[in-house]
């Protein structure tokens, strides 16, 4: 009895101490983890309005035309209200969405044919079923309408057959390897019964109230807010919240302050040092989020001294990419690493490590430069034929991350015997004039692929046909002027190779040529940071994926205590 009493006393004392410790320790540095939540969808609290901060306001609602390929238009609006054929897992794998009954049937011979089986429950917000006619209309718009942002893949389709209203068969005139991205991603499915025969752009540019997703638009006051409410006709998981309101803070420092003051329940800004302030904020889920976006040093291979392969390789060996990434993102997330190919580490299927051979090695710089006929002057700078190894770094003025990259590069390259000067300009001039006209040396800018498949950016960046010339009106994005007919043929083949194993082998072959030629040097994965106030928001917060971002399962979020 006495022993019992002692043990009970001991337990009480320990429990008391634990409670006191918990109370004292609470608040300051507690970081909530989403996995700690035990609330399931079935018993998740209903109601409440969540206010979220978006980095950018959608320019308009026409996702395939005037305002195509805008990431924030996708996160804020399109992915919440539009029907799509394929979703994506958090590991970057494309899987059929709930618009389909399962994986489409793929036939590769004699010609590619994809048969989509549409879910009988799938309906638009007005109750009209989602039909083959909608696939037909969407393809027709993508392939034939003017001012379409990107017709990739759709132009390979020769027609869409409707054997029955709930089955759509896409017949391809030429194979298209990235077929899973069709009717998905930035393009999606449009309602034929509402838009056919009308001016799509005019009807949707200010937003639209029809929906094929879990949410629908309540109102969009330009410059102020965009409010989504649940789509009552949605056949999948219905939203727990009454509404989601997106606000558009334009300044990143203000956005951080606004989050801290509780005016936003979640934000998703680009990774920047300033965000380290939020890492230890109480009740905050803080996660650097690598997507498919990546940033490279793009060498102008038509301009001396960068027209020399040896110089480009030497610059690659002179660059300590680990140091750059650590300086740029270390305080935000130590797990962010440099990228070693033309996609990021989250793209499990297509990511490779070919560029890892370029580690900072000044002895290799010396041998490459000497082999190319350069000699070091008394100032420690390489020179050849009376000309110094001087290059210019060009990027968007005012971008602190890129300016910091330039400073690190200047210091590293000076030590390796190169002079690097900085000449930045506004985005419109860089992308509209300098890059198309080839009046740059080394551009620092990012790619934002809309699909995990390498065909999303490979040909536009490195195919001979994509070199901007006066003949093609300076269109095309092979700004590096990398010009190799054999590699172009291989890349074109990649676009149409339907067999994944063969495509991977082809990609490895292409990458070995590109690693040797170094038209660009991959640097960082350009992460975003997902910041959520876990005192307000409940639900699974790690469902995000590289295309649809972290708000993809907004319908599963809920307000803790029913208010937020």
């Amino acid at each position, binding site marked *: 009895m006495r022993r019992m009493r002692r043990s009970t006393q001991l337990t009480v004392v320990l429990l008391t101490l634990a409670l006191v410790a918990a109370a004292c320790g609470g608040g300051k540095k507690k970081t909530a983890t989403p996995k700690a939540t035990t609330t399931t969808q079935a018993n998740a609290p209903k109601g409440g*309005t969540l*206010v979220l*901060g978006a980095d950018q306001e959608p*320019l*308009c609602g*026409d996702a395939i035309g*005037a*305002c195509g390929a805008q990431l924030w238009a996708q996160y804020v609006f399109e992915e919440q209200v539009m029907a799509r054929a394929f979703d994506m897992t958090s590991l970057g794998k494309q899987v059929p969405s709930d618009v389909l009954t399962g994986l489409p049937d793929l036939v590769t011979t004699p010609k590619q044919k994809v048969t989509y089986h549409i879910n009988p429950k799938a309906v638009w917000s007005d109750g009209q079923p989602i039909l083959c006619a909608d696939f037909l209309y969407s393809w027709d718009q993508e392939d034939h309408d003017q001012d379409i*942002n*990107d*017709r*990739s893949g759709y132009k390979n389709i020769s027609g869409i057959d409707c054997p029955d209203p709930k089955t759509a068969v896409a017949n391809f005139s030429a194979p298209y390897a990235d077929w899973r991205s069709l009717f998905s991603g930035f393009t999606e499915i449009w309602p034929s019964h509402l838009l056919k025969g009308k001016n799509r*752009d*005019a009807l949707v*540019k*200010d937003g639209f109230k029809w929906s094929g997703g879990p949410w629908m638009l309540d109102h969009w*006051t*330009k*410059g*102020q*807010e965009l*409010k989504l409410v649940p789509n009552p006709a949605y056949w999948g998981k219905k939203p727990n919240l009454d*509404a989601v*309101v997106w*606000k*558009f*803070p*334009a*300044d990143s*420092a*203000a956005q951080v*302050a*606004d989050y*801290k*003051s*509780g*005016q*936003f329940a979640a934000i998703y800004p680009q990774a920047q040092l300033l965000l380290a302030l939020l890492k230890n904020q109480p009740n905050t889920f803080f996660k650097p989020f690598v997507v498919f976006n990546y940033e490279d040093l793009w060498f102008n291979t038509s301009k001396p001294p960068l027209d020399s392969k040896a110089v480009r390789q030497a610059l690659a060996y002179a660059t300590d990419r680990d140091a750059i990434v650590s300086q740029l993102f270390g305080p935000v997330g130590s797990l962010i690493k440099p990228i070693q190919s033309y996609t990021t580490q989250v793209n499990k299927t297509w990511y490779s490590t070919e560029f890892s051979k370029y580690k900072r090695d000044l002895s290799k710089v010396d041998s490459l430069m000497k082999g190319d006929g350069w000699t070091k002057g008394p100032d420690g700078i390489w020179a050849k034929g009376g000309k110094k190894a001087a290059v210019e770094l060009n990027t968007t003025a005012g971008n602190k991350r890129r300016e910091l990259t330039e400073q690190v590069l200047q210091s590293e390259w000076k030590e390796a015997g190169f002079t690097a000067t900085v000449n930045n300009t*506004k*985005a*419109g*001039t860089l*992308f*509209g*004039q300098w890059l*198309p006209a080839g009046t740059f040396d080394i551009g620092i800018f990012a790619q934002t692929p809309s699909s995990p498949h390498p065909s999303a950016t490979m040909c*536009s960046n490195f195919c001979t046909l*994509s070199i*901007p010339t006066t003949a*093609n*009106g*300076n*269109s*095309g*994005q092979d700004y590096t002027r990398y010009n190799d007919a054999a590699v172009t043929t291989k890349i074109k083949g990649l676009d149409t190779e339907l067999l994944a194993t063969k495509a991977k082998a082809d990609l490895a072959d292409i990458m070995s040529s590109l690693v040797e030629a170094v038209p660009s040097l991959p640097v960082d994965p350009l992460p975003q940071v997902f910041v959520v106030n876990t005192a307000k928001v409940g639900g699974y917060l790690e469902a995000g994926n590289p295309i649809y971002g972290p708000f993809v399962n907004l319908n599963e979020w809920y307000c803790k205590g029913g208010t937020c």
Partner: protein
Amino acid sequence: MLTFAVRRIAYSIPVLLLASVLVFLFVRETTDPLARYRASPDKELVGRERKLLGLDKPITHQYTTWLTNFVHGKWGDSFVSHRDVSKDIRASLWNTMQLIIWGILFSAACAIAIGVYSAARQYSVLDYTFTGLSFVGLSMPVFWFALMSIQFLVYEPKRIFHLSQPILYSVGLHSATDHSLLDYGRHLVLPVLALSVQLIAGWSRYERASMLDAMSSDYIRTARAKGVPRSKVLFKHGLRNALIPLTTIMAIDIGALFGGLIITETIFAWPGMGRLFVNALINGDTNVLLPWLMITAAFIVLFNLLADVLYGVLDPRIRLA
């Protein structure tokens, strides 16, 4: 007076015309309306759009076409969003005007009060304090003050008093679920403060100087000698005359504010002219930039004109000269 006003208006027309030429040339030179099409795999798109936008025509033809359309109110659609530019500018202008109206009222009241007090109690402790504060206000960058105001007037009170919502807001015009007048007021305080700091600092110095000037005038001495009470001399004779230079300064400043609230509107997510301009500039949206610049130029000319006319009205010596 009418002749005076008509003459001033006539002067404004060539100024606006010259502004239109400069605006058109600078915007054409620094933006590329076709930039967004250059990356398209469709090789004919750039040529098609060039023709569609009339960029294949001579620059003089482009200018006259644009000016004619601008004067007739046909400002076209945004290159980026395809929305009606006049609608966007109208909405943004109204939001900026709200800031300006409240900001001017607040700044004018504070500046006049501070200026009069400082002049009436020259070299007092408060006069020195106001002088020091006005120098701080003039030298303080708006973006820094705005960010500090969010930290100390929004975040800290919420944290210290464990509030569920902040007392003042720093995002937009109103909350997601509350469109009441009180909510509007709570959103208005910080941006108005941010735009007012420099105005109060500058105007209070003008008001102090002109009050001191007025108070040392012969007519003030005469009034005092005739036994008019000090407060009456101060407010009826001194203040009325001291307001004349301030009024003109205010009119010029108000004109500039229509395009000059870029930082305030950006930090407080205020959907006004400043944010519209930044977005148009980033996207190279020539169709928005051109009318935006012309509208702000017109406001500056208009308020300068107003300053001239007001000066004439308030001080008959000017119009007679």
